[in-house]
């Protein structure tokens, strides 16, 4: 290769000084230097956006020059380019204010993952065989265009389906517009941990179909019903900042935090009082607390307004929920309920949260409405130290749920000809009983925009790999985590490593090649044009004190990592939408006969793998789970009494069987779980997801029933019962295994 053929790409913005004293040009590492002689390199910090969960934290990316082995125009070469070296929180971003969770920081390894797809692929073997061959982008796009043009011209009765993760902002606009330009199309959004039950409840109680923003820093009393708000729920970094402030940020004041849940979560571990509750009894418990507050005249029932009036018996003081009457059903002592109710009422502002398994029972909507009413009674809605909504308008909910879509495809009611997949892995993350795999088998042509081969993209006929987030234009409109209006935006922080293309750009090109409706609906040439147009509209709407025109506004937003309002706009809650009958107490139903399946099965979000989409990152695999200290595997949490009864020892391989399937994983005996509950982290058990995650542990989602949360279409993922037995010796790798379990004596000096 000629020297001039070496591509030289410098960092897109900012001068980056070359390192001096660099011993090894291959890696640019300083070796063998005592600290006195250490000369650090200069880095450029660029804003970006974390895309790994719905919180939408702002990133600050450390970019330094380095030599990357890349293929360009079919030739391998060494390219000097700006490389992302570390992800930190963007200090200016209103949601995470410079902080970042472990998952967000590990996002770096997505870009540099050894198993990332390096260019477009076409299937050669039978579907699912994993046999693909590389093709050019031109051919790949043409293949997709030819499949779509038939649908567009309505030559066929078939449909286009677009299955994605829940989306927002301009990415959602482009996908929705693209799908809508076909006469018969279905846009399906799917995530295992979605917030649709909370959105439905908040729409009914407060008129906002949004998850709450928690102003925890000003709270004096926090009651959480199962919400893992310091780990994975809603906006965990924003909530962690608030938590630190609530605990120790206000001189002389320290709020109390009470967690109700049947299995101690990472969040519950930090509670001042952790109180186990019967699975699904969270709503009854909230109403019992409300009953005490009303009966003891701490607050009038009317204080809860519309959110209270939605609950049957509210105006009569919820007499059916007196602690003494229902304590046995809830599993909490009556005196404890009375004490917590009095404490909460006496320590303004007090706030109640509900999430995770508490809203994933069949009565999850009732539980959420009950907690909303308790919050309203405590006077914490729309107030400092309470929960806030908006000001972002709620997104339109997609028409079809994944479950009903798969059923329609399987029954033949929906003749889907072309399926497009983006950022969703439903074959892994949906219960096996939904039949997603079978539905995919029925679809003649599947194209994926995935960056990796996973259980779903392995079934694709065509793969058009997206850039990694750090290589992409990003835009996001977070819905919770800050009282400010936030529109994040970031240009790519580095040039693409591989022969990938940004998904929105590919869609735009496909639309142009198709012509007709699709081209008309999507006039932009590139994704950043669409984002810039949205910022011009934002400037027109909001104005700016610092930017003189739309151009400057756009430039400043890119430098800062987005635009956000100067003031917190606390939206006053409006009366909820549902004027219908009052909500009745409803008991949770569980799939599986209790005599045959004696244990509640509780999957939970992994602090490191989230919903399994991050199990491919070696940093996440080797970081010890906060509570179990397990590395490189999955585990089944069992109470010591249950373990003794079933003669299960720590590390035994146990079989967990539901009416819908069974799995095997090692047992972890822990005191932080009720004797009739078995818990398992979601995230491991991948059959096909890179060298680091494949064939490791088991996937609890695979044995779940298809029960839904009543009043919504959401999966009730905590509504399955199981049986348990020891089947042999398992493999449990504990980081804490070699450490003394006795805390060192901490003495005052």
């Amino acid at each position, binding site marked *: 290769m000629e020297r001039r053929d070496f591509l030289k790409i410098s960092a897109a913005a900012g001068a980056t000084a070359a390192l001096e004293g660099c011993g090894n040009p291959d890696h640019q590492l300083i*070796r063998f230097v005592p600290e006195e002689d250490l000369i*650090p390199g200069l880095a450029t910090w660029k804003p970006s956006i974390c895309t790994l969960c719905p919180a939408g934290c702002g990133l600050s990316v450390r970019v330094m020059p380095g030599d990357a082995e890349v293929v360009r125009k079919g030739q391998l070469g060494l390219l000097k380019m700006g*490389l992302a070296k*570390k992800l930190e929180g963007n200090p200016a971003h209103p949601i995470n204010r410079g*902080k970042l969770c472990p998952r967000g920081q590990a996002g770096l390894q997505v870009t540099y993952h050894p198993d990332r797809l390096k260019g477009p692929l076409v299937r050669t073997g039978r579907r699912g065989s994993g046999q693909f061959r590389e093709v050019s982008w031109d051919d790949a796009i043409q293949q997709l265009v030819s499949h779509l043009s038939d649908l567009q011209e309505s030559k066929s009765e078939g449909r286009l389906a677009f299955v994605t993760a829940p989306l927002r902002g301009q990415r959602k606009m482009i996908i929705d517009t693209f799908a809508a330009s076909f006469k018969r199309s279905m846009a399906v959004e799917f995530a295992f941990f979605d917030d649709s039950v909370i959105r439905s409840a908040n729409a009914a109680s407060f008129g906002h179909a949004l998850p709450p923003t928690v102003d925890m820093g000003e709270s004096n009393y926090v009651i959480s019903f199962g919400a893992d708000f310091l780990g994975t729920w809603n906006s965990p970094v924003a909530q962690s900042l608030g938590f630190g402030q609530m605990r120790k940020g206000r001189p002389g004041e320290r709020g109390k935090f009470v967690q109700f849940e049947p299995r101690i979560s990472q969040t519950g571990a930090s509670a001042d009082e952790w109180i186990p509750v019967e699975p699904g009894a969270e709503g009854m418990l909230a109403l019992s607390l409300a009953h005490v507050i009303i009966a003891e005249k701490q607050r009038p029932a009317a204080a809860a307004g519309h959110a209270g009036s939605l609950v049957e018996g509210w105006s009569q003081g919820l007499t059916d929920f007196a602690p003494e009457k229902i304590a046995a059903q809830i599993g909490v002592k009556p005196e404890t309920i009375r004490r917590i109710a009095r404490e909460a009422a006496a320590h303004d502002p007090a706030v109640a949260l509900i999430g995770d398994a508490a809203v994933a029972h069949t009565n999850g909507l009732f539980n959420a409405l009950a907690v909303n009413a308790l919050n309203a009674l405590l006077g914490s809605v729309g107030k400092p130290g309470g929960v806030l909504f908006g000001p972002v308008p709620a997104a339109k909910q997609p028409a079809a749920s994944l479950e009903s879509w798969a059923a329609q495809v399987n029954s033949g009611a929906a003749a889907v000809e072309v399926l497009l997949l983006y950022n969703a892995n439903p074959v892994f993350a949906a219960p096996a009983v939904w039949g997603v795999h079978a539905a995919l088998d029925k679809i003649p042509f599947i194209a994926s925009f995935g960056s990796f081969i996973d259980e779903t993209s392995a079934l694709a006929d065509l793969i058009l790999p997206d850039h990694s987030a750090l290589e992409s234009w990003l835009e996001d409109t977070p819905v919770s985590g800050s009282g400010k209006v936030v529109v994040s935006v970031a240009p790519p922080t580095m040039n693409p490593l591989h022969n990938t293309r940004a998904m929105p750009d590919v869609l735009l090109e496909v639309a142009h090649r198709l012509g007709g409706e699709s081209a008309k609906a999507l006039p932009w040439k590139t994704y950043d044009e669409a984002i810039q147009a949205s910022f011009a509209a934002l400037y027109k709407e909001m104005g700016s004190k610092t930017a003189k025109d739309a151009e400057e506004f756009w430039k400043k937003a890119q430098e800062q990592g987005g635009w956000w309002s100067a003031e917190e706009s606390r939206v006053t809650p409006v009366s909820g939408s549902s004027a219908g009958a009052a909500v009745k107490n409803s008991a949770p139903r569980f799939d599986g006969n209790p005599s045959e399946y004696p244990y509640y099965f509780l999957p939970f979000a992994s602090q490191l793998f989230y919903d399994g989409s991050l199990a491919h990152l070696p940093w996440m695999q080797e970081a*010890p789970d906060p509570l179990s200290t397990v590395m490189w595997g999955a585990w089944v949490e069992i109470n010591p009494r249950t373990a003794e009864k079933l003669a299960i020892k720590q590390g035994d391989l146990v079989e967990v069987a539901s009416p819908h399937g069974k799995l095997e994983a090692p047992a972890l005996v822990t*005191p932080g779980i009720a004797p009739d509950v078995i818990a398992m982290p979601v995230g491991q058990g991948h059959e096909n997801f890179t060298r680091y995650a494949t064939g490791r542990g088991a996937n609890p989602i695979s044995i779940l029933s298809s029960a839904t949360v009543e009043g919504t279409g959401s999966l009730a993922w905590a509504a399955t019962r199981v049986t348990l037995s020891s089947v042999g010796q398992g493999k449990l790798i504990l980081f804490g295994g070699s450490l003394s379990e*006795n805390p060192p004596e901490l003495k005052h000096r």
Partner: protein
Amino acid sequence: MARQWGMAIDLDRCTGCEACVVACHAENNISTVGEEQAAIGRAKHWIRVERYYEGEFPDVTVKFMPVLCQQCDAAPCEPVCPTFASYHTSEGLNGQVYNRCIGTRYCANACPYTVRFFNFYNPIWEKPLQLQLNPDVSIRSVGTMEKCMFCVQRIKAGEIQAAAEKHELRDGEIQPACVQSCPTRAMVFGDLSDPESEVSRWAGSSRATKLLGELGTRPKVTYLQRDSWHGSEDA
């Protein structure tokens, strides 16, 4: 007097989230060792979150405690090193010069905090994962001991930057990666020789303790004990 770097960790704020653990891996080029090596206790985490269960169901409490090198003033690891790879820097760090290390592992045996990690193999980053490496931190080869040095590369960068900009180093201007990442702001870092620094003020808290302080190691990491709620039913 030279600066004396120290850290304070408020256990009432720590939620055990592991952000510091991943931040440390990213900043300091700590290699992952894989499943088999992890299973025999060879995983390297310069900072780890210890957790302690107390009590039986339903009266269970859990406590988290991040543990890293305590940068002892009377460090047991230093005098045992035959090659002066473990040494005390003028700013009070327990330094480790990797190319002096011959892998006797005496230091790790002497350390009561188990915060020194030995490289049983050469580290591997499967391509292109090596592109994530921080060029300011040397990678450690087989047979050497590695450990936390309060992100000495960040300390140096901060000192050089302040000198170039001709201003005094401000309290809080230098943050090790763990401190920078902490979502609850449970950790502070600074100069213990400055009584006005935040770390000095935290270290003077009535909740302040030292980990295994009775051993006489004089750690420069202070733990602030988890607090309890002082309110009442009718405060």
